[in-house]
């Protein structure tokens, strides 16, 4: 694609095989953004890239990225060509909570994937965008980070940390009066691979396309933190307001 005054540039999608990420990618491509899909499974990324390119007529490339290898992240970021105008981080691992409780290696993998790896790569984005004076970072956290629950507190702890990181980063840019945006997305249940083996309540489960639409609306507007679907804002408000003596007895 040739650069023109209306070319909005490329967006880097971390976790390029995620179903939520792909729905966002399609929505961005419809607006003319080029895409860089980054992740571990080169064949799967290539398959998605070809599909997006044919459907939307934008340039889509792939890049190899592993959240569990933070040492490689600076070189990864330098290698991106063209340099991204924005980043979507959809890396995530729900894992097996039962295993994590008895095997700290798995617990650490959940923290490393959902928190450490995301921070490490978004630090690269933050530095680059700060130098350029513009850019956007969309981080997909989770409602699971709003309050720790018995069923997934390693994942939840990592997402809580990620939410705090994104909030701090946003505060940093806003106090510098720079034009870098940071958007925190907290989905509830979304029907993807991640939840395919879990029974999620049908009424509260969004399709990836709905989540993508909510995110694009945030990008167009001024919201910093969004829940997707909107009702999770109210569900989580109630859950956060429950006094601990009550909350600790719930099985949510």
């Amino acid at each position, binding site marked *: 694609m040739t650069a023109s005054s209306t070319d909005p540039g490329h967006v880097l999608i971390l976790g390029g095989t995620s179903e939520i990420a792909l729905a966002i990618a399609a929505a961005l491509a419809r607006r003319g953004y080029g895409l860089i899909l980054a992740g571990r499974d080169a064949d*799967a990324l290539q*398959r*998605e890239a*070809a*599909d997006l390119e*044919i*459907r939307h007529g934008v340039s889509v490339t792939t890049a190899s990225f592993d959240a569990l290898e933070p040492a490689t992240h600076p070189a990864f970021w330098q290698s991106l060509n063209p340099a991204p105008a924005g980043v979507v981080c959809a890396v995530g691992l729900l894992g097996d909570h039962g295993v994590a409780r008895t095997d700290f290696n798995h617990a650490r993998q959940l923290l490393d994937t959902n928190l450490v790896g995301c921070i490490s790569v978004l630090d690269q984005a933050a530095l680059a965008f700060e130098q350029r004076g513009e850019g956007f970072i969309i981080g997909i956290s989770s409602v699971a980070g709003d309050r720790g629950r018995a069923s997934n507190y390693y994942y939840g702890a990592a997402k809580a940390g990620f939410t705090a990181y994104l909030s701090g980063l946003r505060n940093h840019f806003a106090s510098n009066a720079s034009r870098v945006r940071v958007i925190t997305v907290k989905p509830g249940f979304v029907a993807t*691979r991640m939840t395919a083996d879990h029974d999620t309540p049908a009424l509260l489960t969004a399709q990836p396309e709905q989540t993508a639409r909510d995110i694009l609306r945030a990008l167009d507007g001024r919201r910093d933190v969004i829940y997707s679907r909107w009702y999770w804002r109210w569900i989580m408000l109630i859950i956060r307001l429950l006094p601990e003596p009550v909350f600790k007895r719930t099985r949510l």
Partner: protein
Amino acid sequence: MISGWGNYPRTGARLSAFCSLAELRTLLAGDTPLIGRGLGRSYGDSALAPTLLSTACWNRLRSFDADSGLLVGEAGVSLDDIIRVFMPRGWFPPVTPGTRFVTLGGALASDVHGKNHHCDGAFSAHVAWCRLMLADGSIVRCSAQENPELFRATVGGMGLTGIILEVALRLRRIESAWIRQHTRRLPDLSSVMQAFEEANDASYSVAWIDCLQQGGSLGRSVLMTGEHAPATAIAGLGQPRAPRALGVPCNLPGWTLNGLSVRAFNALYYRRAPRERTELADIYRFFYPLDAIHHWNRIYGRRGFVQYQLVLPPEQGRAGLPAILEAVAAAGQGCFLAVLKRMGPAGAGYLGFPREGWTLAMDFPARPGTFRLLDRLDRMVLECGGRLYLTKDARMPREVFEAGYPELDKFLAVKREVDPHNRFASLQSQRLGLT
């Protein structure tokens, strides 16, 4: 419980969608019978088995050559998808059935035909090649030139040779998304058959027959022919929007489609059809009138319905069609509309349905009287040297199938070579002894 489009029969099945070749290989390694499943628009039991390998996630576009129109898509890509992506760029599926909610895999496995069969042949005539995963997990590419026997067994082979992975389809160039449609009312069967012969060079043609008519008005029908409209003819019309479909939210009670309501509907339909008219219709209205109502199959209620589609050779059709329509009208089994079409020569598939002649498709509520009538129609079809379409079938006896498909032996030879342990088997293939 799951079923085909006719909601008859229903069976318990596990629906497994694969998202990678590795996942598909794992599924093949089990030992319950498997069959591919696309959008489930086949009517009967061709896409039913204990385990269904759904292509719902296997639906990516692989490549497109904007000079030649060659599109490579995964088996789960639907014609609806193709139309949405490519029609605005001036391309259209070379062959389309009466619904756009079918997958490339399903279209090839049934080797579907459209209103242009007399000119352009069936779907497989426009397929440059396909790739297939066999029962042992290996992947083979086949086409009319490459592994031709496997290709001929796979197109129209109802998923029994393996899982179709990708299809390379040659799209057709179109100048607009509009069809110049010509509609004519015809008072009886011989006049509509005559009109078909005269319209032989129309790109698309089809007739809707009012099945409640007998005697002098037997075969009273509305014939529709069409041509892709040139860009110059559609000034200002642009791209049509896919209509927002209305839905039938649940199965309707059995009495909805009684003879009286249907008679009133048909009379209205026939009267409302112009004696003769030419107009521009967008592709949705011309090709997919039924897609405007989601789940229209529910009007037949819980017990479901069966579609009966036959083809008769040209000469035998002259005598056979009136006899069949007469028998249907006399039986009063609730078939109110039949679709008639002139077909061109047979295609490559050993079990392909189309052949030179006349094809007639009718819906009947699934109830005992229907099955007795269809047994009688079977004999009439065989006497005329005709056959029935597998993708519509839920009940044909094995003898009727065997008599209608002279290349069955060639199909079975390939089947035994590529699938010696019958990993791929549907309720239909077991009923018909396709092992």
